[in-house]
């Protein structure tokens, strides 16, 4: 756990969200 439960959710959630956006853009928006 990093700092507290919510900060841990925030850290992994943010990384996950950015990865998900990057992957969906890379796949779906391929020119």
């Amino acid at each position: 756990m990093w700092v507290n439960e919510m900060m841990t959710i925030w850290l992994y959630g943010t990384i996950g969200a950015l990865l998900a956006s990057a992957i969906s853009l890379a796949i779906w928006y391929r020119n």
Partner: protein
Amino acid sequence: MTDARIMTWVGLVIFLALVAILGYIGSKKTSTIADFSIAGASLGPVVLGLAYAATFFSASTFIGYTGWAYEWGFSSLWIFLTLIAASPLGLIVIAKRARAMNITQKSLSLPDWLGDRYDSDFVRVGAALICLFNIFYIAAQFAAGAWIFNTLLGLPYDVGVVFIAVIVVAYVFGGGSYADIYTDAAQALLMVIMGLLVFFSVFWMFDGGLTSAMTQISETLGERDPNLVAVTNPDSIVFYSIPAIIGAFIIQFAFAAQPQLFNKVLALKDPKDMRRMILVYIVAALCFLLVIFGGLYAAVTVDVENLDKSLLSYVTVAFPPIVSAFLGLVIIAAAMSTTDGIFVVMSTIVANDIYLKFLVRRGYIKKSQAEAEQTALWLSRISVIVVGVIASLIVFNPPESIGMFIWIGISGVASGTLGPLLASLFFPAMATRMAASCSLVAGLVSYLAILVSGAIKSTMAAGSVGVVIGLAVMLAVGYATRHHLTKQEG
């Protein structure tokens, strides 16, 4: 006069000069209603990505969301997560197909797009009327701007309302969406700098690195009240339970299809650039959102009686006066960059969606095509003034909660329009005119019923229920009437 006040005045003058120049450039480029509404579908991905971000995030991000973090602690970070996860996803899902379909459809706004797609006046005019809800959104931003003028410059609140209304009306009146988008991109850069400054102030305001600083904050808040460090906080007006958090995710997803954002998707010149536009938006959004940490830092460093003042008080403590002045400008920029986009949409709705595409096309008003086009451009500009006056009047008595006000608009629009939009993009076989009309009415009515009855505490969650009901009705009626899909509709 204090140093901060002098610097705010100087900064404001420079900022307004920049806005005036960009507005002037915009006005030189605006000669048709398509120029006014979607910048003639001629702009590049970086400018539009920044403009999209600046329009998406308003003064509420800097004042309201930091206030939530100050008052309700770590659970308020859910707003960060919903905005960085659900909103880009909504844009990714909607943008590509909507822009691609508009190559042949050539619509100028969300109601116009829906009206053209379903070939239905009821859908066009219904969606147009629903979008007028967003006058509350404009009003809330005027209130936020006036509040900043009052706090930082000592201007009386009502003078501040008139001041910000006149500035925005002036440049949108002249430059339409060109001015809207150029000024938004400049405003986004200011907002990025502010988000980063506030987030990284942790390094000189607290001992040790990020982990040790956040641990200190967490321990101090936890001793004050364990709810402040919990994942949900029962005292919070937004993140008090898991269903409320899910509701927030749903409504942020729907937010991406708000009409003032949708027209930026339509303004992109080359649909192949959509990926770059979305990437620019996500990076900018991430930087803006870091400002929410300022509310947590404020909770352990300053004591304010009004939540909305928490970030401003923190910045006064953590930075030299010039940064307080800069924050004031950023909040005004954030308010303006959201308001101008909604102005453009509202005037497009009146001039194009209702006047040109409904009243003239159906023969209720007899005019030649060229005459009608000219009248529409003027009508769009006059609408800007009318909307500005009405929005100012709404907030002449300051609203109790600015955040509440904006969600009345956003949730209302999303409840009525998301069903028809998503179905037309992803379930074309069920996207019938009847289903779109029913979804429009059912989504809106259910949202209003929840809002008026007060059955759900969070306005975001109330909006998400409206959105889900609108979607369900769209699919159910669409399935039942799928055999009635005419050749024209499909």
